[in-house]
Structures are given as structure tokens and as C-alpha cells.
């Protein structure tokens, strides 16, 4: 196992980034106490980290970064509008893709026939052949076992499955199957099966339809064949539900309107939930229950609330399961009655009686379960469930842009106080001083910080003048464009300049600029004495010594006095 010492770099980095466990931390610190080399590395790593933190902090993206990325993205990928978007959305659904391909192929086949003048025979066209076969299969099943809805349903599923795989057969057999079954339904009105098959068949496009037009068309298709066998309609148990995604301006408004619409259609809002997103917009879900016959009208209404993003409409036929359960329930009731009778007559052994009691309990439990199931279905059938997802829209077009400019100026000057007052004197209607501070630190050094707001038209002149007051050490300007009343880019929005913020720091110039520099080399027998002499001379002349040092060469003389001295002084 590698020791701490061998992998000290990894350990130190992990320590720095808070990735060491308590135990690991203890190990590291124990080692650092023992090892001088690693201690040194530890010091250096800490300094390195500080430098990285400071340097990289300045490279981070500015606060408007995400907004800019979004704006560029929207610019480069414009949102598709209306029909194109709808078609693209539609094409994402597999069933629609298949149907579209099938339709195109069929059209091609038809054209081919028209050109060659051939009549269609199953052997000429695999698709047509397969379709015909399916029709036969389906009608055979329907004819031979009209009472068994299950098997017919299965064959229809089979047909649907095969047609998906073949991608060709679907459009052809569909109408054939439907009309066949509709006829069948008239022949045997006492069975539920044909109507159900027709329904299942018609449901398929409906379940996948996503566009408003598609839904309407599917709706008609569903009603068409389903209405033919009139007596069964009333008994059919259909669960209808819809999922709608809307982009709206205001969440609360939308919820209010949805509630109003629900009341109009004799429905009610079941649940509402919402959450605030990072961008401050709300997103949430409203579940509404409406009477199934009012569902379409309700959907039409809520579509007007905002931009429809997505819509799924589904119908689940629970007729078979419902009546199966219903029949089983009746049987169970009969069973219950018989068991009760057995208990009442009280013949036989006690153990038999106990057996009967036990059985009675089981049957009753089953009855309750089935009753609950039927009740649930009833409630589901009674009301259609509409789940509406709402997302608040980002306002695309900002009303205006505000251009904010912020400048930092660092000035160095010999007389801080004078400049401080000079700058203060600049104050006028267009130049507003928001902060002015004159500081004196413990060593008596004076510095000042000032902030001002300048009217945009004056900013250049004022900043220029301020710069002239001293030596500019550093000047930075930051300009930010802030969108108002929206986000993103807009061609039409006006750009307004905000007041320019100027922050000034004034520090005392430590090193006055020398007008003239003279260097003098003096050869002397006593360096020490001469140094003192020059020192006092400088002081007498109103100057001061800025630095001095002396060199001693021990090898040559071995004496204690300095051999060479340098003096740097300045005077008026």
C-alpha cells in the first residue's frame, strides 16, 4: 500500500478540496508533523491554491452569461412555428411515422398500377396480399366466435402488430376489417364483441393523435363505426383521459380560467400543484375531471389559454374486464348465499361447519374486492381525466435594454487631499457624488475612496478630467446590457444608457518622479565618514535619503569598516 509520503500530492490536493475522510485527515496530519519535506510541499500547495483561486476567479463567466447563451441559442435555432412544428411533433410518434410511410408507399403502388394498367391481385403486391390475409383472418374469427370478445380482440391486436412490422398492410385492411365487423355487429346484436373490436380499431389512431386536427379526425373515426351497433354503446365502459402541455404567460391566471372552464363543463379541478423554477417562472400540473361527453369541448377551450406544446388523448376500453368482474361478482354472490344457507341449516360435523365459515369469509373478501374494482371503474368512466401541465413562458422580447457602465479608477498623486477636494468640486446636477471618504491609516498615509454617478452624456468629459488629476495606475470599465421586461435579444427594443458609475481610489504617490538624476562616485579613504557627510548634506538641503547600503569585503582588508557604500537620496 502506498504511504502518505509517496502520494503526498494527491493527499494534499484532496485535503485542499475537502475530499479527505476524518481518518485520512488524521493520517495526513500525523505525517506532516514528522516529515519536513512534505511540510514544505504542504506550504507550497497552499500558496499555489491561493494563486489559482485568485487568478481563476477573474476568469469566471459574468452574471449575464447564461442569458447570453440562451439568447444566442434562440437566435441560432429559431423556434419553429405552427404547422412545421406540429408536423415535426407528429413525426416523432412512431405510429404516425409508420402510417406516413405506408401512405406514401400505397400512393406509389397506386400510381404504378395506373401506369401499367394492371389490376391489383394479392400475388402482385406483398402488402396488399398481407392485408387481404389479415382481413380474412379477422373476419373468420369474428364469424366463428362472435361471442368471445377476447379472441377477437387478440386477432385485432395481431393485425395491428403485424401491420406495424410490415408497415404496409395497415391502411388497407383497416377499413375492410371495420366494415366487416360493423356488418357482423348487425347480424348479431346481442354480442358486445364486434362493437368492441371496431372501437379498439378506431381507438388506435386516436390514442396516438397529438395535434388538434388529428384529435378531431380520430374522434370522428371513433364515433363513426361505434355508433352503428347502437344498443351496445350505452353499456360500453370507456375510460377517457387526456394529457395536455401548455405554455402560458401566467400560471395563476391559467389555473383560474381552467377552473372556470371545468365548472362550465360540469367538471371539477381534482388537484393542482406548482413549483417555482430557477428562472422565477412557475411550472405545475392541474388535474381536471370532466364528463366524457364534454371532454372535447373542454380541450378546445383550454387550448386557447396559451401555446399548445403537446397533447395526448387516450381511451381505454374496460368493457370486457368490467363485465367479467360483474359476472364473477354475481357468481360469488350466489356462492355466498349458498354458504349462508348451509350455515343456517346446520347439518353435518362441527369441522365441516368451520370449513364452511372459512369459505364464506374468503368469498366475502373476494366480493368486496370486486365491488371496489367496479366502483373504481365506474368513477373512472364517469369522469374523463385531463392532466394539464403548465409552464410559464419566458417573455421573448424585452421591452428595452439598459446599458450600465461601471468604471474603476485608481489614481496616485502626491497630495491626496487636494485631489479629493478637486473631485468633490466636480459635483453638479449631472455629477452626483454618492460616497467620499478620506482615510488616514496608522502610519499617517492618506488615501481616499470616492464614488459618483455621472449622466451618460457627461461621463466621458468627467472621467477624462478626473484622470488628469493624478497618475492613473489602473482604469477598468465594465459595460453590461440589462434586458428589461423580458429576456433574450430583440431588434426593436431601445437601448437606454443608465448613469455611469465611477469608483475612484486615490493613494499617495510614494515615489515622486525625479526631474533629474545624478549619480556620483566618490573615492575616499573613509567610506563611513563620507556617508555620514552626504547624509547630513542631503537633510540640510531639504532632501531625504531613500535607501542606502554598504558592502564589506572581508577577504581583502579584513577590517571592520565598510569598503563601499551607496546612497540614494532625493532633494528639491
Amino acid at each position, binding site marked *: 500500500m502506498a504511504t502518505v509520503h509517496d502520494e503526498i500530492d494527491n493527499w494534499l490536493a*484532496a485535503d485542499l478540496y475537502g*475530499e479527505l475522510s476524518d481518518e485520512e485527515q488524521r493520517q495526513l496530519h500525523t505525517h506532516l508533523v514528522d516529515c519536513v519535506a512534505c511540510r514544505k510541499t504542504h506550504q507550497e500547495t497552499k500558496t*499555489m491554491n491561493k494563486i489559482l483561486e485568485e487568478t481563476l476567479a477573474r476568469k469566471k*463567466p459574468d452574471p449575464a452569461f447564461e442569458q447570453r447563451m440562451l439568447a*444566442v441559442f434562440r437566435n441560432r435555432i429559431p423556434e419553429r412555428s405552427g404547422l412545421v412544428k406540429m408536423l415535426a411533433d407528429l413525426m416523432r410518434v412512431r405510429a404516425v411515422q409508420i402510417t406516413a410511410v405506408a401512405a406514401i408507399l400505397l400512393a406509389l403502388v397506386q400510381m404504378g398500377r395506373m401506369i401499367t394498367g394492371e389490376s391489383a391481385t394479392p400475388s402482385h403486391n406483398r402488402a396488399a396480399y398481407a392485408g387481404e390475409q389479415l382481413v380474412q383472418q379477422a373476419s373468420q374469427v369474428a364469424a366463428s366466435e362472435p361471442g368471445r370478445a377476447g379472441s377477437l380482440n387478440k386477432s385485432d391486436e395481431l393485425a395491428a402488430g403485424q401491420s406495424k412490422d410490415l408497415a404496409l398492410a395497415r391502411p388497407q385492411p383497416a377499413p375492410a376489417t371495420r366494415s366487416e365487423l360493423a356488418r357482423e355487429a348487425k347480424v348479431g346484436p346481442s354480442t358486445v364483441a364486434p362493437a368492441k373490436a371496431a372501437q379498439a380499431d378506431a381507438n388506435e389512431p386516436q390514442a396516438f393523435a397529438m395535434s388538434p386536427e388529428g384529435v378531431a379526425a380520430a374522434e370522428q373515426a371513433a364515433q363513426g363505426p361505434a355508433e352503428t351497433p347502437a344498443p351496445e354503446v350505452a353499456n360500453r365502459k370507456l375510460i377517457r383521459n387526456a394529457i395536455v402541455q401548455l405554455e402560458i404567460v401566467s400560471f395563476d391566471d391559467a389555473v383560474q380560467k381552467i377552473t372556470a372552464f371545468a365548472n362550465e363543463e360540469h367538471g371539477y379541478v381534482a388537484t393542482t400543484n406548482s413549483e417555482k423554477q430557477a428562472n422565477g417562472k412557475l411550472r405545475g400540473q392541474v388535474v381536471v375531471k370532466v364528463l366524457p361527453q364534454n371532454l372535447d369541448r373542454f380541450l378546445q377551450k383550454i387550448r386557447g389559454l396559451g401555446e399548445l406544446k403537446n397533447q395526448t388523448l387516450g381511451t381505454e376500453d374496460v368493457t370486457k374486464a368490467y363485465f367479467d368482474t360483474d359476472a364473477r361478482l354475481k357468481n360469488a354472490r350466489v356462492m355466498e348465499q349458498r354458504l349462508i344457507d348451509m350455515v343456517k341449516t346446520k347439518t353435518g360435523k362441527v369441522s365441516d361447519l368451520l370449513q364452511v365459515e372459512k369459505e364464506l369469509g374468503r368469498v366475502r373478501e373476494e366480493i368486496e374486492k370486486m365491488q371496489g374494482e367496479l366502483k373504481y371503474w365506474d368513477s373512472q368512466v364517469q369522469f374523463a381525466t385531463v392532466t394539464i401541465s403548465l409552464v410559464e413562458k419566458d417573455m421573448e422580447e424585452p421591452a428595452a435594454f439598459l446599458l450600465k457602465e461601471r468604471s474603476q479608477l485608481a489614481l496616485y498623486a502626491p497630495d491626496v487631499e487636494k485631489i479629493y477636494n478637486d473631485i468633490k468640486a466636480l459635483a453638479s446636477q449631472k455629477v452626483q457624488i454618492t460616497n467620499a471618504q478620506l482615510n488616514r491609516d496608522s502610519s499617517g498615509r492618506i488615501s481616499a475612496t470616492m464614488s459618483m454617478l455621472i449622466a451618460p452624456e457627461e461621463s466621458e468629459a468627467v472621467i477624462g478630467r478626473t484622470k488628469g488629476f493624478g497618475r492613473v495606475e*489602473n482604469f477598468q470599465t465594465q459595460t453590461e446590457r440589462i434586458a428589461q421586461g423580458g429576456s433574450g435579444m430583440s431588434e426593436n427594443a431601445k437601448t437606454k444608457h443608465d448613469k455611469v458609475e465611477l469608483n475612484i481610489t486615490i493613494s499617495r504617490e510614494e515615489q515622486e518622479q525625479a526631474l533629474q538624476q545624478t549619480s556620483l562616485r566618490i573615492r575616499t579613504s573613509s567610506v563611513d565618514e563620507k556617508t555620514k557627510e552626504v547624509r547630513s548634506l542631503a537633510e540640510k538641503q531639504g532632501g531625504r535619503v531613500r535607501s542606502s547600503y554598504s558592502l564589506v569585503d572581508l577577504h581583502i582588508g579584513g577590517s571592520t569598516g565598510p569598503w563601499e557604500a551607496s546612497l540614494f537620496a532625493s532633494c528639491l
Partner: protein
Amino acid sequence: MDASEREQYRAAIHGDRGAFEMVIRTHSRTLFAIAYGILQNREEAEDVVQDSLVKAWKMRWRVRDPEKFPAWLSMIARHRAHDVFRKRRPDFTHETIETTEVNTPETSAMDQQLHSALATLPELHRAALTLRYFEEMDYRTIENTLGLTNGALRGILGRALASLRKQLRPALASTD
């Protein structure tokens, strides 16, 4: 990853523009950190983020598993940044681009040294460093973002820091 996050990625992959824009809001900075790490230049890095987002939108159907969406985004940004880095003109210099920042002489000297020291590191190490310093991500998140195996980052960041430390040793001594 919680369910709502997963759902958001799923919606984005399925073309929900709102969900995708949300991803832009939440992930742009991560992508920038990766791109900046590799390129060491803000303008170029920003371009890389923009290109990556556009590419991600166009290719979004390629992602099968919504959980992999963030890592996939990062991969696009990494590749794009790598391409930009390779295609740089030979006379390209850091200073010609970064003129907007005015610094005092000492810090810019340090900047310069750090910049050249960083340039000697492998791209992956640089990206890991910037993710750590820009976004303050923990090791686990960085590993997920850069598609590294569990535990690999410890060695990477250790070596990266050691290399920087050795190169900047003289400067470090003076700042102490």
C-alpha cells in the same frame, strides 16, 4: 439524479424546448469551465459553449438514457474545445485576445506564469482544475462530468497541482 431532473432531460431529448433551455441555464457554466480549462481563453470558450449547445440540440435524439445527458453535453464541449485548440493558428497568443483586462503589473506577471504553467498540463487535467475552481464541484461530480472512473480524479488533481507547484516554485517563494 432525482426524478424531476431525469424527467427534464428526457423532455429535452424529446424536443421540449423549454426543458432544453432549462438545461442551458443549469449547465452552461459547467461547459464553460471545461472549455476554458482546455482553451485558456474566455472568448473561445464561450464560442465553444454556444456551438456545443446548438450541436446538442440537433443531435439530442442520440442520447438513449436521460441520465447520461449531462455527461454527453460535457463530452460534446470537450471535443469541440479540443478541435478549436488544435486548429489554432500558430501565431496565436494569449495576450492578443485578453486585452480587456487591466491588471497591475505583478498580478499580470503571475497570470502569465500561471498561464504558461497550465499550458503544459494535459487538457483533461486543465478541465478538471477549472471545474474545481470555477464551479467548486466535488470529486464525484467532476468524475461524472468528465466521464472518469471512480477515484481517478484524486490522482489527476494531485499531479496537476504538483506540476503547477514545481513550475511556479520561484514565484511561490516570492509571494510567501
